[in-house]
Each structure stands twice: as structure tokens, then as C-alpha cells.
């Protein structure tokens, strides 16, 4: 099964749309109850990161296959200010703004794989996966 969907993030209301679409895709893939909630919550956190720091961006939701393994991949991309110190941003409780500093490290805990690529002045891309 190959499917991909894209949610444009422009306001906090789009966070709800992104996590609902992610839940639906994860459900179609065969994820169960608690995993669906973990995926939806992780999407919520990375989408909020876009709204809080970059104002706008996008979330791409897709299926991913690795050999016989299947999973969901979530890419959160923005062209915002970027993160000067990624290691610091990934520390639990560290926040430069209004957040709790929970979002990015929290999303990492909820998913199986998590990568972040950020360049100051160019933007941030978070890629995370959860396997079935």
C-alpha cells in the first residue's frame, strides 16, 4: 500500500487536522489503539513546533516499507528560523519560547525513529517513523 498525504500547517487549528489524518493513515496500516494515540500525539507535538517557531510549514504522512516491515513516516518541514542548538532543543524541558520544552524530545520518545535536521535561517525538518 502506498499513500501519502500532506497537511499545510498555518495555524494551531491545522494541528488537529494533521493528527487526525495521521491517525487515519496509521489505522489503515493496522496500528492498534495505543500506537494510534502515540502517533497522533507525536504529530501534534511536531506540528505545534512549526506553529510556535516557524509560523508555517507542512506535515507529510506516508507509509514506509523496509523489507517486510511496514510503518508510518511523518515529516514535519518548515522554512522558519531554524534551531541554533539542536542538542539543546532535544533536551527535555528546554524551551526558548512559550512551550514546555516537551514537544520535540517528547515526540522522539513516542516514535521508533526520530531525526532532526535544522539550519539557521533555512528551516527545520523532522523525520520520524513508527514500525508496525
Amino acid at each position, binding site marked *: 500500500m502506498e499513500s501519502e498525504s500532506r497537511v499545510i500547517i498555518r495555524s*494551531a*487549528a491545522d*494541528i*488537529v487536522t494533521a*493528527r*487526525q489524518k495521521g*491517525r487515519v493513515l496509521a489505522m489503515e496500516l493496522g496500528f492498534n*489503539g*495505543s500506537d*494510534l*494515540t*502515540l502517533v*497522533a*500525539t507525536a504529530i*501534534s*507535538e511536531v506540528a*505545534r513546533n512549526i506553529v510556535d517557531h516557524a509560523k508555517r510549514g507542512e506535515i507529510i504522512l506516508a507509509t514506509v516499507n523496509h523489507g517486510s516491515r511496514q510503518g508510518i513516516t511523518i515529516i514535519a518541514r518548515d522554512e522558519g528560523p531554524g534551531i541554533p542548538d539542536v542538542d539543546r532543543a532535544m533536551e*527535555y524541558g528546554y524551551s526558548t519560547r512559550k*512551550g*514546555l520544552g*516537551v*514537544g520535540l524530545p*517528547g515526540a522522539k*520518545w*513516542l516514535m521508533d525513529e526520530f531525526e532532526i535536521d535544522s539550519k539557521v535561517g533555512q528551516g527545520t525538518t523532522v523525520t520520524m517513523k513508527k514500525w508496525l
Partner: protein
Amino acid sequence: MHVPVLKQGDYLIASVQSALSDADLVQLRDDLADRVGQFRSRGVIIDVTVLDVIDSFATRTLRAIAHMLKLRGAETVIVGIQPDVAFAMVQLALTLAGVGTALDLEEGLAYLNRGARRNLTHGK
């Protein structure tokens, strides 16, 4: 979606009906802070049974609502957090420290009634 708030005796009951955006949560906070004054409420139940995600922002806002209402003289109890949601919150190390929680609406009412009785016995 707007959260309806019902008055039930000394208590207010806010029943979340669908997924909440950040703006809805902030609106709920402001509504409850107003109504607790308007109705001189002693307790507030927030029923989140339908929520399939309680992320860091929602947790922080629920905590803020409970603390604000406490300062306004009302006790808050959050009811109906689903098992999967509780699991995700624990994974995120999110807590509702200092906020009352109960299984469902019935237990929430019992929680507030126990608090009211306690205050009565302590002559408060």
C-alpha cells in the same frame, strides 16, 4: 469546537464534545474563569472522555485552568482520560500534578462532594 458548560447546583460541568484546537482550550479556560464567578461555583468538572489526544499544550492548559479556578475558589476535577491517552501522557512525562482526576463524571461528582464535606467538617 466550543465546549458547552452546564451549571449543576454548586458545580459547573464542561463536556468536551470533539477534538479541541488550542484556541478552543484557551476559550474554555476563559469561559470557566468567568462562569465560576457568575454562578459562584465551588467545583468544576471537565469531561475529556472524547479526547483522543492530550498533548503538551492541552496538558499545560488543563493544569492552568485548574490552578486558575482554584484561585477563584473552585476545585477542578478532570474526568474521562482514556487509557491510551494516559499511556501517551506518561510516555511524554506529562503530569497533571496538583489537579484532581477521576474515572468518569459520576466519580468526578463524588470527588467534589467529598471535598465539600471535608471543607464543612473543617469549618471552612
